């Protein structure tokens, strides 16, 4: 093993970095959208809707991401073909974004639900008492406080998803790890260990940066705000 050669792989690997970023950003957006819907469902007074939402969360938390990738990438086109829909034109990156959005949406939903419930109920009552509608109260009173509570979990969810983007290679997307595999197979595997270590270091540094950004955002956001959590 040639440890000194590891840094020399960084420039080549980084050419695939935009793909990893694209997967992360798009998956975060979609998982937040799906998560918001699911969290509204799980808070619903309608037992059937709440049950479905909670079932969805439990299901997504129980299935390994790899299996979900295979289900969507290998299984879904087969099912669709049988009912006459051709999914061949869909790019592999779409499958990976769909998988990560679905699997992370459960965590996002739980995060939103917990932060919503963490805001003291009295806050909503107080807002009603000054004549706000639920919409206004949510937008101006509940959400700003719940968001502050959610920041650390949000950061953690994004970090976990960012690490899972490394599974994109399983469907042939050339992301960081996909590029790493391509580099190592181009040299018949002679430098694979160095390449994988280089990949690992890039992921590590990104996670460190994401952790810092989370902490920083939390500090900026919660500065001067009173914690209004239900105790």
């Amino acid at each position, binding site marked *: *093993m040639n440890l000194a050669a590891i840094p020399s792989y960084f420039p080549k690997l980084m050419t695939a970095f935009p793909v990893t970023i694209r997967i992360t950003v798009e998956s975060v957006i979609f998982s937040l959208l799906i998560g918001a819907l699911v969290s509204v469902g799980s808070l619903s007074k309608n037992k059937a809707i709440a049950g479905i939402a909670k079932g969805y969360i*439990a*299901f997504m*938390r*129980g*299935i*390994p*991401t*790899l*299996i979900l990738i*295979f*289900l969507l990438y*290998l*299984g*879904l086109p*087969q*099912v669709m073909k049988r009912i006459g829909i051709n999914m061949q034109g869909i790019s592999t990156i779409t499958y990976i974004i769909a998988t990560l959005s679905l699997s992370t949406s459960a965590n996002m939903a739980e995060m939103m639900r917990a932060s919503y419930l963490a805001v003291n109920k009295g806050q909503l009552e107080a807002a009603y008492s000054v004549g706000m509608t639920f919409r206004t109260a949510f937008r101006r009173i509940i959400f700003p406080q719940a968001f502050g509570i959610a920041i650390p979990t949000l950061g953690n969810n994004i970090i976990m998803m960012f*690490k*899972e983007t*490394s*599974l994109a290679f*399983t469907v042939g997307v050339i992301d960081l*790890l996909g590029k790493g595999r391509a580099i190592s197979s181009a040299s018949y595997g002679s430098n*694979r*260990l160095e390449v*994988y*270590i280089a*990949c*690992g270091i890039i*992921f*590590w*540094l*990104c*996670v*460190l940066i994401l952790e810092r950004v989370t902490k920083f955002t939390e500090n900026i956001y919660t500065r001067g705000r009173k914690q209004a959590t239900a105790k």
Partner: protein
Amino acid sequence: MDFPFMLQALPEIIKAIPVTFFMAVAATAVGWILGLFIALIRRAKTPGISQVLAVFVSFMRGVPLVILLYIAYYALPTMIYSYGLSIGREIDVSGVPAILYAITALVLDQAAYSSEIFRSALGSVDEGQLEAAYSVGMTKTQAMIRIILPQAFAVAVPNLGGLFVGLVKGTSLAYYVGVYEITATAQLLALPKLNYIEAYIMTTVIYEVISIIFNKVFNVAENSLKRFRGVATA
């Protein structure tokens, strides 16, 4: 749906469950003990070792499991081989089963994650508890084993449960280093006739059932350990 295939394949996939469990249990048993020691050393702020461990934990938490598995799979054979040479023996590395490399990667991963759980659990036990233990004449070890650890453990259980279920899901990645656990077996069976949807629905059900069972088990454990809590969290 190809039901004859499902009936034929299901017993084969079920046969692979022990492989998944073996990896998960071995990684937990070794990893969590290591994690506890890491947490204790970092808590004691032993100069030098404490900082090295902090970097280790940060690295293990920052690198995706699949990369960790690859690194273990390609680095360990060379390491074992050169260790063999240093003690004057030529070890046949190709005879080492892949599952060993997978378990090593999972152990390191678990050690890092569980150490963070133990660290915060130890931190949640009130300092006064230790002082009280000293005041009745306990030594530091006694106080740790009898007073602090049981309380910290009760606090840690819910998070450890989540970690374990995550680990079982993570073992599916061992497929990429050639371990024939649930996922790899399903993939292999699906290949000849492209029965992907059937194979993965069965796999999904198996993983879901495993998650449900372990979530229940850890819930029960959490409730029965509740008597250690309450007083502990300051």
